[in-house]
């Protein structure tokens, strides 16, 4: 059976060009980049090239790029590293209610250690309010962390404007741009950010490699102490193969950004129109325009999300009910609750995220099948749709 993969926000297949770039670092060029002999120097030189590729993709200096093992580690490092470094100055952090769990749970952990966190609400399309932000800033606020684009509903936050406000107050500003890279332009200079998290596996790179951009000169505590790698900021022998892969993936992503955006937007709109037009009591979650070009997120009244997913899977379609990393949890999505959906409705969500290889035929197939699936599940439901 042909599979239609529509969960590119969860992870992407690795681009064959990227795989090709990795392989030599698993075979010949296996040296430890910290070693001074030829094998080590070759590895070192390579990872500096990859660092430059990432830097170019986000308009940073290569010395501002620090490799981590994931977007999650980058988020943890940014939040905890700034908090611990500045705890004498203040212990107040501002973030939003719709952040990724890597940010939220880091903040919650800090609360247990005596920090105070303000979780800004969002409106019904998932945007934070700049007024709320201004009002939340206190004398002891040391960090603001607001995500660039939401992984569930795709809403794009006004990072540039937030950056301006935060910068004026001299507070450190972090943004989780894991979902932004490769989908919308990311320019650290334009955005006024001090820290920015990235992850390779969302842009056709491998899982297990991330980046934290740290603006030059910004003091931050280490999250992982040890050897002198990453300019003494992040210990652990460098994951050379995946670093090379991330570099290449970032290069490809920036080079093809415009065309990919157009491609995804077209199919996303085809999908949204199809679903809203053909399925009664369906709603689109997130902002109608300020949303990721590949993201569509729906709620269907009177049915439960997992049932939709399983039904889709059986006919070859891979979709998700929110973020992948919380499956296994029974709680409705914190993002859908934050935009004001009742728990019952939030349970019936479906996220379909489009990628480079998605075709218009795929979308037609999905829409047509979804119509049937939703009907079948509603027929099975004890809740009266009238």
């Amino acid at each position, binding site marked *: 059976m042909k599979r239609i993969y529509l969960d590119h926000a969860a992870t992407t297949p690795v681009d064959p060009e990227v795989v090709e770039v990795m392989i030599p670092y698993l075979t010949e060029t296996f040296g430890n980049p910290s070693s001074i002999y030829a094998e080590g120097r070759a590895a070192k030189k390579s990872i500096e090239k990859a660092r430059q590729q990432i830097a170019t993709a986000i308009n940073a200096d290569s010395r501002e790029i620090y490799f981590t093992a994931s977007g999650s580690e980058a988020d943890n490092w940014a939040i905890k590293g700034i908090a611990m470094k500045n705890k004498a100055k203040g212990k107040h952090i501002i973030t939003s209610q719709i952040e990724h769990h890597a940010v939220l749970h880091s903040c919650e952990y800090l609360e247990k250690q005596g920090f105070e966190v303000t979780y800004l609400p969002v409106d019904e399309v998932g945007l934070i309010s700049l007024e709320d932000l201004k009002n939340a800033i206190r004398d002891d606020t040391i960090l603001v962390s607001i995500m660039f684009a939401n992984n569930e509903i795709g809403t794009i936050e006004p990072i540039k404007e937030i950056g301006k406000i935060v910068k004026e107050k001299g507070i450190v500003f972090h943004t989780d741009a894991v979902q932004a890279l490769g989908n919308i332009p990311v320019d650290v200079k334009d955005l006024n950010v001090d820290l920015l998290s990235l992850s390779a596996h969302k842009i056709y790179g491998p899982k297990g490699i991330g980046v934290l951009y740290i603006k030059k000169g910004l003091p931050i505590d280490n999250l992982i102490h040890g050897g002198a790698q990453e300019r003494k900021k992040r210990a652990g022998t460098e994951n050379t193969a995946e670093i090379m892969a991330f570099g290449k993936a970032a290069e490809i992503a920036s080079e093809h950004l415009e065309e990919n955006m157009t491609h995804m937007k077209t199919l996303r709109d085809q999908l949204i129109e199809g679903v809203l037009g053909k399925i009664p009591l369906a709603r689109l979650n997130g902002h109608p325009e300020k949303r990721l070009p590949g993201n569509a997120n729906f709620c269907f009244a009177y*049915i439960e999300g997992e*049932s939709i997913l399983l039904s889709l899977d*059986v006919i070859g379609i891979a979709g998700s009910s929110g973020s992948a990393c919380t499956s*296994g949890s029974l709680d*409705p999505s914190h993002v859908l609750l934050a935009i004001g959906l009742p728990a019952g409705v939030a*349970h019936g969500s479906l996220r379909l995220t489009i990628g480079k290889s998605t075709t218009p035929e795929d979308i037609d197939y999905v829409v047509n099948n979804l119509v049937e699936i939703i009907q079948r599940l509603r027929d*099975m*439901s*004890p809740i009266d749709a009238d």
Partner: protein
Amino acid sequence: MEYTDVVMENFTCPKHVGEIEDANGVGQVGSPACGDIMKIFLKINDNGIIENASFKTFGCGAAVASSSMATDMIIGKSIEEAGKLKNSDVVDALGGLPDVKIHCSVLAAEAIQAAIQDYKNKKA
């Protein structure tokens, strides 16, 4: 989370979906853990034997599969026997359920008990 083939079969082609027009025992329960709802319809004859059973479920794959399996297991049984059906019996029949989904089978056992109780209440 990994469902067994039996679970998937019972989810994709559930048995006994829908309402029984002349049901004389109907039970509905909701899961506090996830907010899902299960409704069981029973047709019980004068000898206290369940002649037919059906369900309507708003819930996850495990809930649908548990409903399907549980109704199938009690058809032809006496209400005494059916009342003793434990959620673990359903789980066993399904070849197991992921830990976080055990409560969905509890829903099925409870819905059956509620339906039997409803029948008894009506008769009394």
